[in-house]
């Protein structure tokens, strides 16, 4: 028996292309045996545990504008694929307009891990437990993807296909994520239920985001995204519809939480049972809605 909890990395070749097109072509030509590398915080664990057997890791975090973090009041926020989570959290623009994103990053692992971990990597890893994905979903994230045919955009809402599965094709590299300008006064919370306060993977994660919206009967728009309770990170349209069409009060939040509970389909695993997760989705969604309501000044 080894002293190390995890073995050393298996053999592979590290490839560092000079351009995005070179990277896309290499990944397409070596489909099934090459993987884009950002911070590596998931990839290296998966390789050591024998889940990934790639012959090539293609470093894409130094390519065109992947280092960009920019904000414009008209266009919104752009986060390059190589921007690490600590940088996101420390950005005054993110804190001012997308505080929910900073809060979600803060819940990820440790400071050291977040020096390497990226939001785009968290998304591409496509874990149902991805801590930053809920915030990215409710904030309306859109991915810029570079493939062998050039650039295209993929809305995050239709990006996930299953655990670890996305719409990305061989050769595709997500170069950045963009968010539209946040509505004035918008507020959100991310409640992460783990075995400890900090750093653990979530047993259940609930993201709620809301803002005043005169276009809806209730005068508000609320969205919720759930982590670790379905094969993919899950938006709950039924909750949004209910809270758009009913007066906002404690009973509306209770019913919305029931709808979130009905929408999820968790499994039993080492971190929690399906039954427990279902119960927690209802409790934490109601709590998150109330906390958001308070943050909105009510």
């Amino acid at each position, binding site marked *: 028996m080894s002293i*190390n*909890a*995890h*073995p*050393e*990395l*298996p*053999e*592979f*070749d*590290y490839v560092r292309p000079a351009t995005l097109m070179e990277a896309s072509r290499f990944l397409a030509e070596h489909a099934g045996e090459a993987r884009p590398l950002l*911070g*590596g*915080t998931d990839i*290296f*664990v998966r390789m*050591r545990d024998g889940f990934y057997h790639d012959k090539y*890791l293609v*470093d894409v975090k130094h390519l065109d504008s992947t280092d960009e973090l920019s904000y414009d009041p008209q266009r919104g926020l752009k986060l390059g694929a190589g921007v690490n989570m*600590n940088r996101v959290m420390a950005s005054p623009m993110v804190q001012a307009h997308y505080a929910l994103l900073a809060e979600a990053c803060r819940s990820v*692992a*440790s*400071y*050291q*891990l977040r*020096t*390497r971990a990226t939001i785009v990597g968290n998304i591409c890893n496509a874990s149902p437990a991805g801590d930053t994905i809920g915030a990215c979903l409710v904030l309306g994230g859109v991915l810029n993807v570079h493939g062998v045919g050039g650039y295209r955009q993929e809305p995050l809402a239709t990006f996930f296909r299953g655990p670890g599965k996305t719409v990305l094709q061989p050769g595709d590299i997500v170069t950045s994520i963009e968010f539209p300008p946040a509505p004035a006064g918008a507020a959100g919370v991310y409640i992460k239920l783990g075995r400890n306060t*900090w*750093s653990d993977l979530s047993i259940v994660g609930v993201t709620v985001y809301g803002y005043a919206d005169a276009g809806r009967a209730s005068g508000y728009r609320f969205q919720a995204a759930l982590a670790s309770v379905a094969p993919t990170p899950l938006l709950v349209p039924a909750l949004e519809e209910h809270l758009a069409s009913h007066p906002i009060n404690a009973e509306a939040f209770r019913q919305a939480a029931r709808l979130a509970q009905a929408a999820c389909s968790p499994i039993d695993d080492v971190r929690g049972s399906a039954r427990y997760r279902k119960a927690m989705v209802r409790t934490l969604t109601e709590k998150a809605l109330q906390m958001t309501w308070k943050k909105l000044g009510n």
Partner: protein
Amino acid sequence: MANHRITLKINGEYEQVDVPSQMTLLQMLRDKLAFTGTKNGCNAGECGACTVLLNGEPVNSCMILAVECQGAEIVTVEGLAQDGVLDPVQQAIIDHGGVQCGFCTPGVLISARALINRNPHPTPDEISEALVGNLCRCTGYLRIVDAIQDAAARQESLAARL
């Protein structure tokens, strides 16, 4: 499998090293360059015993490829003392008895140095949060947290005298 020749700065000295793709920064530091102060605890980015500064920011060196560090500046625990004088975080952790078995200590010291660099007046809560990625199974953390707070205060009084 390809070897890569990289040049980087470790504790102020330039080093040129040939590394295979899959070699981590931690393996290179310990096995190629004999910086054995940096420890291998979990090899999975959980325990923080391998924490070093990469371009001024703390990272788990088990979760970074050596080849990714081309041109980088690394500080390990061996690089904290200057001209034979311990860093304030080192002196404080000795004075407060914040070391028991010592295996987590190099990583704790690096995290503490990075914390004080970015936040010269950390509260106990901020110190605890900064140490989330540094597991210590001996001390219960209290003396470590006291030491880091004291180190920040000592550093400030040192700066005030200069």
